[in-house]
């Protein structure tokens, strides 16, 4: 395996239209709708941070929308998905409630985690999102365990664990790759390689920039794709997810992408990355997953600007309404501070 991402890490490459395969126009429009919803939701969260309304640490996924949207096209509600600190995209791509996400970020009782978690602790089991946490790499074994449960259930469900290139530097990822392989667990581990962990470029942290090499070393089927191409992500994810459903064991998807904002918060803070110069960010913005899909929809499927504008307006309206609803919602009761520590009498009701 080539351990260098080569052109995949070069923002001058992969800037053309998305190759649409045999997707129906409706499926493509659905993917576009989700990506727009995520983009505008994240921009709204940035505004809430800037205005001082949102105080919890928010790690925005602007620029990375295609990864979760592509993968989620293959998921059903009985699958089980786990995320990390930057998981708004993973949650929303499954169709989880935008209203509940905004309320959670504002610490309101109507939030996805009843206002107990904030941006980094989202929960929507009704669509298969079973939790996100910011201890880097922590949900990798948890996803594998959810995969073990799926294997024991024997109904062909799969688990998905999302994490970043930084998590690949945690020992627990390596332990989990080994165990998932030896136990043949139906889990697809998704590394969103955005080339940065917090402020540090991957070149300053690892001897090679493709993290898929760790999975290959554990004899796990691995795909490395352009993470800013929703169809390419879905194509690779589909192979891995189907194999896992059929009992063939784990898969590893490395989706190369880029976050437009800083590690945490609303700013582009181009200065924090030791090698993240303004021109690199500008170059990556030309590999925008939304713009690229739009180009293809226009050229290959005859979508009109009016259609696009209408989708944008609808998404913006939904986001605006979600923020307003969240603002109006109450905070958690004081009692929930202690009530949620243990199950009452040890039993969840």
């Amino acid at each position: 395996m080539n351990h260098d991402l080569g052109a995949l890490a070069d923002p001058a490459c992969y800037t053309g239209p998305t190759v649409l395969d045999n997707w129906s126009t409706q499926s493509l429009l659905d993917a576009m709708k989700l990506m727009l919803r995520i983009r505008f939701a994240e921009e709204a969260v940035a505004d809430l941070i800037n205005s001082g309304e949102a105080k919890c640490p928010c790690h925005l996924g602007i620029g990375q929308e295609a990864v979760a949207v592509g993968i989620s096209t293959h998921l059903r509600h009985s699958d089980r998905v786990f995320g990390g600190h930057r998981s708004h995209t993973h949650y929303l791509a499954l169709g989880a409630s935008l209203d509940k996400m905004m309320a959670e970020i504002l610490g309101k009782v109507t939030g996805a985690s009843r206002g107990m978690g904030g941006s980094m602790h989202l929960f929507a089991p009704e669509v298969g999102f079973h939790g996100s946490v910011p201890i880097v790499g922590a949900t990798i074994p948890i996803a594998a365990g959810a995969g073990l449960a799926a294997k024991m259930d024997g109904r062909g469900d799969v688990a998905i664990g999302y994490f970043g290139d930084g998590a690949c530097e945690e020992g627990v990822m390596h332990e989990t790759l080994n165990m998932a392989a030896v136990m043949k667990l139906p889990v697809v581990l998704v590394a969103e390689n955005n080339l940065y962990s917090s402020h540090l470029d991957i070149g300053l942290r690892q001897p090679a920039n493709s993290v898929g090499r760790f999975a290959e070393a554990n004899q796990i089927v691995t795909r490395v794709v352009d993470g800013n191409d929703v169809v390419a992500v879905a194509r690779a994810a589909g192979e891995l997810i189907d194999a896992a459903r059929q009992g063939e064991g784990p898969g590893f998807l490395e989706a190369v992408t880029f976050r437009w904002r800083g590690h945490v918060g609303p700013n582009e803070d181009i200065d924090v990355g030791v090698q993240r110069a303004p021109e690199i960010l500008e170059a990556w913005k030309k590999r925008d997953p939304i713009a690229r899909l739009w180009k293809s929809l226009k050229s290959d499927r005859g979508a009109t600007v009016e259609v696009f504008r209408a989708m944008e307006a609808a998404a913006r309206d939904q986001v605006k309404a979600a923020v307003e609803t969240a603002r109006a919602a109450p905070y958690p009761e004081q009692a929930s501070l202690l009530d949620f520590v243990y199950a009452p009498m040890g039993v969840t009701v």
Partner: protein
Amino acid sequence: MTRLAYCDAIREAFEYCMDKDEKVFAIGQGLWSPWYVGRSMDNLDKRYGKARVIDTPVSEQATTGIAVGASLLGYRPVVIHPRMDFMILATDQIVNQAAKWRHMLGGKTSPSMVIRGIINRGGEQGAQHSQALHSWYAHIPGLRVVMPATASDARDLLIGAIQCDDPVLYIDDRWCYEHEEDVSPAADITLASIRPTLRREGADITLAAAGYSVLLALDVAEIVKQDGISCDVIDMRMLNPIDPALVRSSVAKTGRLVAIDGGWSNCGFAGELIALASESLEPGQWKARPQRVTLPDSPAPTSKHLEASYYPTAAGVAEVVRRSMRG
């Protein structure tokens, strides 16, 4: 009633729970080995199959995380760490994940799992094969911590832990494994209803402990009986959440307290027992200053010469009791 040793009682709890609920499984290092965990898991792999009694690679953290994940999707795993010292490698999954999962996600989900950490010390095993770290883990809200002293509790607290929806750290002690007791037939247990219990009733002084230290306290009570001293011996059973009522009422009666613990002193369980009593008693109710018997502030030694003075002994604690009786 059947005569049962502590380690066989542990196995009986596994059998009871695995017979009753197909969602219960065991996972950890050494589960297919005859020597890793005493007799406490003997033949469970043959009886329930290797898909339900899973021996693992040397990966404490991933193994524990896998159990967390399975527990969130309807299973009741028991993760076995044959030595608590190695369980430290899994502490992120225990403390950051399992213990907090319910609270931080709004009370709608629980890691219904048991982490079984075994205290395995003595025999010149040295600093990294000897630790009793219950005080560390009992500090964490959301993690129930139980520590059985007797054969009945070894079985019943494990049944209760497995049937509980919260993550439970179940700490058993190899020094207790041959302790025998007549036990009644196994039954369902609601762990949240478990309270501290009086193992021996007296009038002069309260000895409070958990796990193996309770057996030590019972030996101490027998020794000082020769001096005409009668002891209340309290078995705390559950370290977190902790129930202070019995230690408070006992010390209110005796006015004297010796807290015995196989961990270290600073920020430890023995100090917590003294604090529980002190917060409730009036200064005038004390007949003597409360005492704690713990390990010296050093890692466990290897040489048997040093080891002989490292762990609390019944004779040593008896001397502390006598001192306390003198005021």
